[in-house]
């Protein structure tokens, strides 16, 4: 079995209301010196088999088709 982590983040310049709200909340809680916060998603995925190249290709296809909204998001794949 192959374990993978897919990280999906917002592209630069895309408004991130969540990140902004968290920035504000951290400030309210007294954490100083916090600059930009951007929020993204991770997916931990288990895949049958042991062919890493195939797994990477499959994961890429999964990102393009479902996991990431490539209009506004970037994705990164890492096998663990």
């Amino acid at each position, binding site marked *: 079995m192959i374990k993978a982590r897919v990280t999906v983040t917002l*592209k*630069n*310049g*895309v*408004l*991130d*209301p969540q990140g*902004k*709200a968290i920035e*504000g909340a951290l400030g309210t809680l007294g954490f100083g010196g916090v600059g930009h916060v951007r929020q993204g998603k991770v997916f931990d995925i288990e895949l049958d088999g042991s062919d890493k190249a195939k797994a990477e290709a499959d994961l890429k296809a999964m990102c393009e088709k479902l996991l990431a*909204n490539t*209009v*506004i998001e*970037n994705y990164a794949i890492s096998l663990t």
Partner: protein
Amino acid sequence: MTIPNSIPITPELVASHGLKPDEYQRILDLIGREPSYTELGIFSAMWNEHCSYKSSKKWLRTLPTKGPRVLVGPGENAGVVDIGDGDVVVFKMESHNHPSYIEPYQGAGTGVGGILRDVFTMGARPIAAMNALRFGAPDHPKTRHLVSGVVAGIGGYGNAFGVPTVGGEVNFDERYNGNCLVNAFAAGLAKADGIFLSQAKGVGLPVVYLGAKTGRDGVGGATMASAEFDDKIEEKRPTVQVGDPFTEKCLLEACLELMASGAVIAIQDMGAAGLTCSAVEMGAKGDLGIRLELDKVPVREERMSAYEMMLSESQERMLMVLRPEKEEEAEAIFRKWGLDFAIVGWTTDDLRFRVIHQGEEVANLPIKELGDEAPEYDRPWIELPKPAPLASTDVPQADIADALLKMLGSADLSSRRWVWEQYDTLIQGNSLQIPGGDAGVVRVEGHPTKALAFSADVTPRYCEADPFEGGKQAIAECWRNLTATGALPLAATDNLNFGNPERPEIMGQLVGAIKGIGEACRALDFPIVSGNVSLYNETNGRGILPTPAIGGVGLIDNWSRMARIRFAGSGERILLLGA
């Protein structure tokens, strides 16, 4: 600066701004020199179809827009209609078709956000929303993705903002395969003496920017083409606007508080081409000039150019002219709601629209002419021959029970519950009839018996067969849906979705539909008080079905006697009325 103002103006650049050579010549004649890059952007924003209505204006003027109850007709952010007892209903419908096709969740959500802003900019608290949706064939590979994204996006924005969605439409046809339609309607309640307009009054008054920060959201294709001017933009920036319903809800509360404090002289929301259109409109309507200082605009991204700031479509922003003595009070209200507040300019008496950025005057244009001198076209149009009526032998013979089942199971007639259960239909506690009936009904808060009915209607295939009759039918259907609850129809808003108006047969559809709408409205005393036109809805040279969606509002004097779609009990007589 990311994009310098000194970029040379080439014919290609002009074309990429959607300006035709004769339109560019008009600009040269108007200002007597070559425009700067920022000025070109400003003209493109003001003179595009969306802002200037250059193809439709001539025909829109023929619609009946007045009536004893109409307090504000087309031309403001939304129409205003008197419902008695000092109350008014404020409403409008607007399309967000293209953005919804590109990114359905955000596109549809920001469409809802935009129409809600139009309503509360006028001083009204939104009390009801509807959405009229058209998608491609159910089995088209993109349809499922678009339907689920659009519906989730509408719910995501409207539910968080806190307005009940009480009606709408969903249709499927392969003619929308490459071009879905998302038309959002919103209505709000205000006091007749509490309506706010965009006309600035008074020289030397502060122009105040409120709401969210400005980013590069939606800065059009033209900037994308210009991205090569900046080697630091490593990835192509998405032009998608992302909605933030939380900020909008705060903006609503802050605006209503500010209006109640007496600080607001004029207010305009920043919709498409935000700062440009809103500032020019406030000045031009008030016969005043505006001087904007862009260095004071709250920005979300670094190194934004004047061009980008003037064309940004970032959501949840407002421009206001405030009474100077109330400035501090106003700022406190906005800080309380966690919103940005900045004085970004002044009203002037020179009738110029001046934009200053980093010490440079990047634009200096005649403010009235920016709007008034926008091109207006009398585009050629032809009426297509009407299709021959079906012969009775054309009608396929089928077992009635089979046919009934097939119809009930069809995409166009099946239950819409899957859609409207994703919308909050009950919030505010005033929903008397939620989707599933003829019209949505919401009681008027603070009044013991009054309620308002809302319906959105059009049947595009009728409009395709005969635009004039189809336009009439859309009005008549909307009217009937309102009366079916016991409401007196008051007025309507129209959202005209068509293909490319430069093609005479499409222009013919637009003209025919407007004439039909006008005729039906006159016959029924049902004035059009606001609306929106969305043209160029086509892919690969094939236009969508002509889709003039109508949103109507009716008044119920006593909701305890309102009619519902369900049979009220067994053993009752059933009557069939009408032709």
